[in-house]
């Protein structure tokens, strides 16, 4: 077969551009930015055929590429996407374009390294979602840590070193145990790292539970689930705007993606046995972290906690094991990718002007930045799940699924609508509405064309997905059914 290797292109084009950009010195900042944008747009362009050529009727892996990589351990360069992963590749390529645009002016130091870090990270993330070989997955999964560590540490806020190291070590802890789990499965499957082979591998209950624990540590840290979420607020607060956006929009999804690619289909019996535990943790994230978010005085921290709460919704959707729940969770992941990226970019817009993230320093921004205020209004509404925004679709589906599963779980999950509204709208009110709080706010300039473009692209995505979610859900349908079939079949 000589079809175009779209997946490889979507991985390697951004990385290649990242390396080229890296070769420039900072004297050529303008060229660096254009080159980076070109790379990001090309990256998006080569991932579009993945959607347009996608066959929604089958749950099989599409756009497969296979070549031997390390025969010594039977590790292969095996790529492919199903209805679940293809959406994340698109989301990632899209967000990368926005991040490059968002860092256009606000990054003045080491522009080349900044842009290169994001481009390389984008390629690596596409690799994570496309990998069908566990070791390939692991290599991409771990490699993303390096650029993110540098992004937080080099361009971050005052406490950046602490946040960067915490981020790195926290994630490494989980993934090292996952590596041991991979090697265990390699041994048990008679020398295969193929994820699809592992889906069929029978396993006894005890190994399933232990493997589940190893995967849980790796993925729960990434999601992040309560109580291993504490790295996230630090990382978000200290990271530069682009870093926060990618972190919230894509990196957190790696954890949730790991659950559906590894834990659920490979360890169905352990998943069922531990569902209560997972649901409890998810509900704590939704309710408790929702309350924590209300009390925040730092905008970025507030959005970070709101991310934890929303991701709690995602894991809840997975572990109630019905189509509503899983599809809702996936929609929620995509939607959260748009909304959280948008909110972080909004905070970035204000931070570029005021150099403060404190809610108390703001007030009455609507008087000086009306265009910005109305766009941010939309994202705030989406964050609390208003109908006709993308936030509503996923939350509604998960709550429906949870109600079917158990009334009280559904009831507790639904409180997110209250808490979400409370923390988001209260923050929005304090920052945007009211009288002009101080001279700095009075001196604010409304967003320029570039910022407007970035935010309105996101606004279109949020609205489009909210009004007409079918293009997203129909892609994932077959794959979700396949996943549920795997889950229903015991492997004991």
């Amino acid at each position, binding site marked *: 077969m000589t079809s175009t290797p779209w997946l490889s292109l979507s991985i390697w084009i951004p990385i290649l551009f990242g390396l080229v950009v890296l070769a420039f010195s900072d004297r050529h900042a303008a060229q660096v930015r254009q080159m980076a944008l070109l790379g990001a747009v090309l990256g998006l362009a080569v991932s579009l055929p993945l959607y347009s050529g996608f066959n929604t009727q089958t749950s099989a892996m599409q756009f497969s590429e296979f070549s031997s990589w390390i025969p010594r351990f039977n590790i292969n360069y095996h790529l492919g996407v199903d209805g679940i992963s293809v959406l994340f590749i698109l989301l990632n390529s899209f967000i990368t374009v926005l991040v490059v645009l968002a860092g256009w002016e606000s990054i003045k130091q080491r522009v080349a390294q900044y842009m290169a870090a994001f481009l390389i990270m984008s390629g690596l993330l596409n690799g994570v979602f496309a990998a069908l070989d566990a070791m390939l997955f692991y*290599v991409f999964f771990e*490699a993303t840590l390096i650029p993110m560590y*540098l992004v937080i540490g080099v361009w971050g806020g005052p406490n950046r070193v602490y946040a960067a190291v915490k981020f790195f070590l926290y994630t490494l802890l989980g993934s090292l145990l996952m590596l041991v789990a991979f090697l265990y499965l390699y041994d048990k499957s008679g020398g295969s790292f193929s994820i699809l082979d592992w889906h069929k591998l029978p396993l006894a209950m005890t190994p399933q539970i232990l493997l589940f624990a190893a995967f849980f540590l790796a993925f729960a840290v990434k999601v992040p689930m309560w109580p291993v979420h504490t790295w996230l607020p630090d990382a978000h607060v200290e990271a530069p705007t682009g870093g926060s956006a990618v972190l919230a929009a894509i990196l957190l999804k790696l954890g949730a993606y790991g659950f559906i690619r590894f834990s659920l289909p490979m360890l169905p019996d352990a998943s069922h046995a531990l569902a209560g535990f997972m649901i409890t943790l998810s509900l704590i994230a939704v309710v408790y972290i929702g309350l924590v978010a209300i009390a925040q005085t730092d905008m970025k921290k507030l959005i970070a906690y709101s991310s934890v709460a929303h991701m709690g919704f995602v894991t809840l959707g997975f572990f109630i094991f019905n189509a509503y729940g899983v599809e809702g969770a996936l929609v929620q992941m995509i939607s959260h990718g748009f909304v959280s990226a948008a909110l972080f970019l909004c905070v970035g817009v204000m931070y570029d002007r005021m150099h403060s993230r404190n809610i108390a320093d703001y007030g009455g921004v609507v008087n000086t930045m009306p265009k910005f205020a109305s766009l941010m209004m939309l994202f705030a509404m989406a964050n609390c799940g208003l109908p006709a925004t993308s936030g509503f679709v996923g939350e509604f589906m998960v709550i429906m699924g949870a109600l079917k599963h158990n009334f009280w779980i559904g009831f507790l999950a639904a409180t997110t609508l209250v808490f979400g509204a409370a923390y988001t709208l209260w923050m929005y009110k304090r920052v945007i509405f009211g009288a002009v709080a101080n001279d700095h706010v009075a001196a604010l300039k409304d967003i320029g064309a570039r910022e407007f473009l970035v935010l309105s692209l996101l606004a279109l995505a949020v609205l489009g997905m909210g009004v007409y979610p079918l293009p997203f859900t129909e892609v994932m349908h077959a794959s979700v059914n396949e996943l549920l079939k795997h889950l229903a079949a015991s492997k004991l």
Partner: protein
Amino acid sequence: MNFTMPNLLPAYPEIFLLIMVSVILVVDLFLPQRLRDLSYALSQLTLFGCALLTLDVSFLTEGQITHTFSNMFVADLMGHALKLAAYIAVSTALVYSRAYLADRGLWKGEFFALLLFALMGMMVMISANHFLTLYLGLELLSLSLYALVALNRDSALSTEAAMKYFVLGALASGLLLYGMSMIYGATGTLDISQVAKAIATANPNKTVLTFGLVFLVSGMAFKLGVAPFHMWIPDVYHGAPTAVTLVIGSAPKLAAFAMAMRLLVNGLLDLAVDWQQMLVILSVLSMAVGNLAAIAQTNIKRMLAYSTISHMGFMLLGLLAGVVNGNWLNAADAYSAAMFYVVVYVLTTLGSFGMVMLLSRAGFEAENLDDFKGLNARSPWYAFIMLLLMFSLAGVPPTVGFYAKLSVLQPLLAADMTWLAVVAVLFSLIGAFYYLRIVKLMYFDEPIDTAPIEPSLDMSVLISANGLAVLALGILPQSLMALCYFSIKSL
């Protein structure tokens, strides 16, 4: 009595090296300081010649195991591969050391002669098939290294390090000899293959044998530098001139690995149950001591010294997973993993100490961690190279250090020693912290020292190649893995 000429072919590289060292030693006497580079060129030429001869030997023997000198000397694929790696390591060390030693007035003939004699010792160790040959090689290596450590004789620190190294090294040699004599007592032979045969068939006295084994393993542990026999490492690494630290930290590890293979695997495989337990303790202790103590260091040479201890501990994991319940199926996997680990470790160490020397200049030793501050602002390229090296030591993909860890962990899991694998990864998590700290210093902090970094062309090309090799082998590790596997498989 008739005397038959032994087959010299397998020992051609050693013979050539000996001749050349003697030539260099004499020629150098008549050279004025400004022509010292001639000795350097001769040394590099010698290494090149050795490499060609080793390739030639492996070609002529068709990769078969060939014994000579009444079975005292063996030439096999593992030996050839390790020797080639040692030539590359020594040659690289020579390039890295050139400017550094010249700046300090240590660019003298002794350095070449001692270095090449040390290499000779390593080669004899690698090819030893007899306790005596092994011991001779080891002593030749050690004595050369003792002298090298004291190369800068006016430095109190170096002299102290050399004394410590010598006293402890002599003690370890004593332990080793004692162990060998006990095994001789039990089996009646010093020939390693005969020892293996005697243990398998002649049912020797188990108590004596086990005692001998304990001494042997202790002596070996000292040479490898694993806890609790690691005390000399930080002091020697710190005290020796960095060029010598680079030598000690790189190629001799290959020889020490060969020694472990010859003694434990070729000779005492039937006692695997006993020595595997010892290695478990040594390995876990080393990973604990190495990784925890490294965190507290402010001197990069000491930090890398503790990092060596932990890495050698990790390497032992590969050696101890080979035989499970008398089943050898795992052996080739496990031992080739350990070999891969050592080779990768040597490659990365060369680069790391090379960077330390790159940042040093006349009258200035870049040996504190703070000297790495803001390297990214001073030179993004070298910061990037160091970043690759550090992530490789930490075992983060896509660098080759990750595959080294992976290949060692895989046989552990296959041998049902999952708990040991978990312990190992937890310690490497701790280890990641101090490698990350170097990256942090280079990228997140502002430079203190703003002197320009102007290495010579050969140094700059080689260290870049070294760093990129860590990345390239990380993206395509198959060739090196297969080479290790192939050469161990043939044992």
